[in-house]
C-alpha cells in the first residue's frame, strides 16, 4: 500500500475527542495509488508505534500468562542444551574453552545470542501468517508484526540472561567492564535475525511451505555456528570464510563481552559478519517492503 502525506509537515496530529473534525489544514492526506513508492514509510511506522508496543505486549502477555510454564520454558530449554553441549563438546570432544572461562559458561554465552537469533527468525516468519485475520482487516505497516515478535524474543532473552548470571556466580566467574558493550551486540543480534527473518516472513506469505525451512535453518545453524565450542578452534585460514555466517561475529562479540580478556574478536571476520548482517537487513527490508503491499491479497 502506498501512501503519501501531502501537507502534513509536522508529525501527524491524532484527533482527540473533539466533537467535530479539526480543520483540514493539519489533517493527514493520503494518496493511494498503484505501485507508488512510499516516501513517508518510516514516518508512518513511527505513527503506529503504539500499535507496535501493544502487539508486542499482547504476545508477551499471552506467552507468560501461564507464568510458570512461560518462565520454565525460557529456563529449561537453554539449561538442558547447555548441559548437552558441555558434555559433547567440552568432555567428549575435549575442545578448549576461551582461556579460563568454565566450559558451561562458554556454551551459555554462545547459546544466548543463538537462541535470540533463532527465536526471532521463527517467531517473525510466522507472525504474519499467524495474524492473517488482522492483516486482512486493518491497515498498519506490516513491518510492525515481525518486529513486535522480536520484542517477545528479547523478553525470553532477558530471562535466559539472568540464568547466565546465576551460572557465572555459581562458577565464581565474573564478567569485566566489557559487559557494558553487550547491549550493542544484543542490538546487532536483533538486526542480524531481522534481515533473514523479514525475507522469510515475506516469502512465507507468498509460498506457504517456506515455514518448513525455518526449523531446518535453526537445527542446522546451531552446529554451524560456534554455539557449543569457541570459534578459536576453527583453523586460522578458514576463519574468514567461517565468518560469512553472521552469527559467528555476534557470538564472538558476546563472548568478548562476557568472558573477559582471553576471548578475542577476530577483526576481519567480525567486519565480514557485520557486512553480511547489513546486506541481509538491506535485502530483507527491501523485499518485505516490496511485497508488503500485496500481503492482504495473499493471506
Amino acid at each position, binding site marked *: *500500500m*502506498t*501512501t503519501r502525506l501531502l501537507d502534513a509537515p509536522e508529525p501527524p496530529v*491524532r*484527533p*482527540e*475527542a*473533539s*466533537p*467535530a*473534525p479539526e480543520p*483540514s489544514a493539519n*489533517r*493527514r*492526506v*493520503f*494518496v*493511494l*495509488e*498503484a*505501485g507508488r513508492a512510499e516516501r513517508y514509510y518510516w514516518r508512518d511506522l513511527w505513527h503506529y508505534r*503504539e*500499535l507496535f508496543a*501493544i*502487539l508486542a505486549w*499482547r504476545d508477551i*502477555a*499471552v506467552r507468560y*500468562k501461564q507464568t510458570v510454564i512461560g518462565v520454565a520454558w525460557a529456563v529449561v530449554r537453554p539449561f538442558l542444551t547447555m548441559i548437552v553441549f558441555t558434555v559433547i563438546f567440552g568432555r567428549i570432544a575435549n575442545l578448549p574453552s576461551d582461556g579460563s572461562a568454565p566450559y558451561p559458561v562458554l556454551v551459555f554465552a554462545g547459546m544466548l545470542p543463538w537462541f535470540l537469533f533463532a527465536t526471532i527468525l521463527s517467531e517473525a516468519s510466522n507472525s504474519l501468517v499467524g495474524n492473517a*485475520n*488482522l*492483516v*486482512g*482487516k*486493518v*491497515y*498498519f505497516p506490516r513491518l510492525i508484526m515481525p518486529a513486535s515478535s522480536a520484542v517477545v524474543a528479547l523478553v525470553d532473552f532477558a530471562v535466559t540472561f539472568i540464568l547466565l548470571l546465576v551460572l557465572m556466580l555459581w562458577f565464581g566467574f565474573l564478567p569485566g567492564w566489557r559487559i557494558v558493550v553487550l547491549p550493542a551486540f544484543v542490538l546487532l543480534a536483533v538486526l542480524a535475525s531481522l534481515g533473514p527473518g523479514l525475507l522469510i516472513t515475506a*516469502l512465507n506469505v*507468498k*509460498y*506457504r*511451505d*517456506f515455514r518448513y525451512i525455518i526449523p531446518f535453518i535453526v537445527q542446522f545453524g546451531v552446529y554451524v555456528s560456534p554455539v557449543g565450542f569457541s570459534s578459536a578452534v576453527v583453523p586460522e585460514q578458514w576463519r574468514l570464510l567461517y565468518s560469512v555466517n553472521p552469527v559467528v561475529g555476534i557470538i564472538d562479540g558476546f563472548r568478548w563481552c562476557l568472558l573477559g580478556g582471553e576471548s578475542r574478536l577476530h577483526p576481519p571476520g567480525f567486519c565480514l559478519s557485520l557486512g553480511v548482517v547489513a546486506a541481509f537487513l538491506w535485502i530483507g527490508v527491501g523485499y518485505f517492503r516490496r511485497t508488503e*503491499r*500485496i500481503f*492482504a*491479497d*495473499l493471506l
Partner: protein
Amino acid sequence: MAKDVVIRTEGLGKKYIISHQAERDRYTALRDVIWRTVRGWGRSAWDMVSGRPLIAGDETEEFWALRDVSFEIQRGEVVGIIGGNGAGKSTLLKILSRITEPSEGRVTIQGRVASLLEVGTGFHPELTGRENIYLNGAILGMARAEIRRKFEEIVAFAGIETFLDTPVKRYSSGMYMRLAFAVAAHLEPEILVVDEVLAVGDAEFQKKCLGKMQGVAELGRTVLFVSHNMAALQSLCSRSILLRGGAVIFDGSTGDAVSRHLKVGEPSDRSSLQQVEGRRGRGTFRFVAARVGPASPSETSIITGKSLKFELEIVGPKDSALAPSSISIVILNRHGEILFICDTDASMSSLPLIRGGRSLCTCTIKEVPLSGSEYMYSLFLGRAGEIEDFIDVAGRFQLADSPFFGTSRNCAPGWEGKGVLVPHIWELTSLVCSGDK
C-alpha cells in the same frame, strides 16, 4: 482539491489474478510453483519435439474486482454502498482502508480512516476484557490516551463491569459481541468505514448499533456504510452508491439505489461465486454462479406466494462426473436462521448425475411461502456424505410482500421474515355445555 471533499477516487481498479491450477488450494506453495514451471518446460519441450505449435499456458486469468470507479464524498456525508455478492463492495472498502492496494487509478483521502470490517478484530481469547479493550482499540487506530479516557464509557456501554478481569474466552458470545462493538463504537475518526456490522447480533443490539452510527454521522463525520440491510441503509444514508460487477452503476439517493438494486432480484442478476468467502469442501465440483429470481418472465421481482427459481452453475473437471450427487439450497432469514431446505436427497427419487465441465441446475419453488423481507441462502453440493462445495451465504434476495392468505397481512407486525408461511385453516367453535342453560 475542493475543501470539503474527503474522499475522491479516480478511475479506481483492482485486479486479481486467479490461477485455475491453484484454485483448489487455499494458498500457493513453492513446491507447486516449481513443479508447475518444470512441467511447463517439459510440455513445451515435448510440443517442440513432436512438432506441435507451442501454446502459451493459459492457467491464470485476470479478474477485475473493481474497475474504473470514480466518485467524491464530502465531509459529513453518510454514504451507503450497495451491491450483490461479488459486486466489489468489500474490495472498495479494503482499498479505502488501505488494506490492499489499487491496481490502477488513485484515491485521495483527507483524515484518519477507521474501518470496522469486522467487529472484534484482533481480540485475543486468553486476554481479559480490560486488556482486549486496549488491544482492540489500538488495532482500530485509537491512541492509548484516547482509550484510557473513554475506558469507563466503553465498559458501561458493553455492560461487562463485573467481568473486566476475566479472559474473554469465558465470555458468552453476547458479551463478547457487546464488548467488541463497544470499543468500535467509541472510535472517533474523521472517516468511518463500516462493513456489515449489523448482520450480527439480535434486533436490540442492531438497534443500538444503528443509533450509535447515527450519532457519529450527526457529529459531522463521514461514514461509508456497506450493508445488505436495506432498511438500515435507508434510515442512515441519504446517498448511496450502487456497484455491480465492479463498476458504479448508480450514485444518488438511497431510495433510488435500493429500488434499482432490488429490482435486480432478478432474472438478470447473476452473482458470481468465484470470490465468495466461507466456503468448505473438496472443491473438485463447485458452484460458480447462482441466480435467483421469479420463475415466470412476466414477473419482475420475487413475490410472496408466487414462483421463485434458483439457477445454479456448477463446474467440474472435464473428464469426471459426480454421481450420485446431492444438491441442496438452504433458505435462511436475514438473521441466519434456517427456514427450510430444498434437497435433492429428499425430493428426487433418483439422484442426478453431474457431468464434468459446466452444468446448469435449476430449482423452482412454485409458491414461495415467505413474507416480504430479505433472505439468504446456502448452497451445498456433495456425494455420499462427502462435501464437494458448501457456501454458507451464497447470496441474498429480497421478497416483495403480497397477500398469501388472502388477507391484508402475511404476519403480525415485526414477524416479517421470521418464519415460513403455511396455508392453514382456523375454526372457532363455541363450546357451550348443555348444563349451563
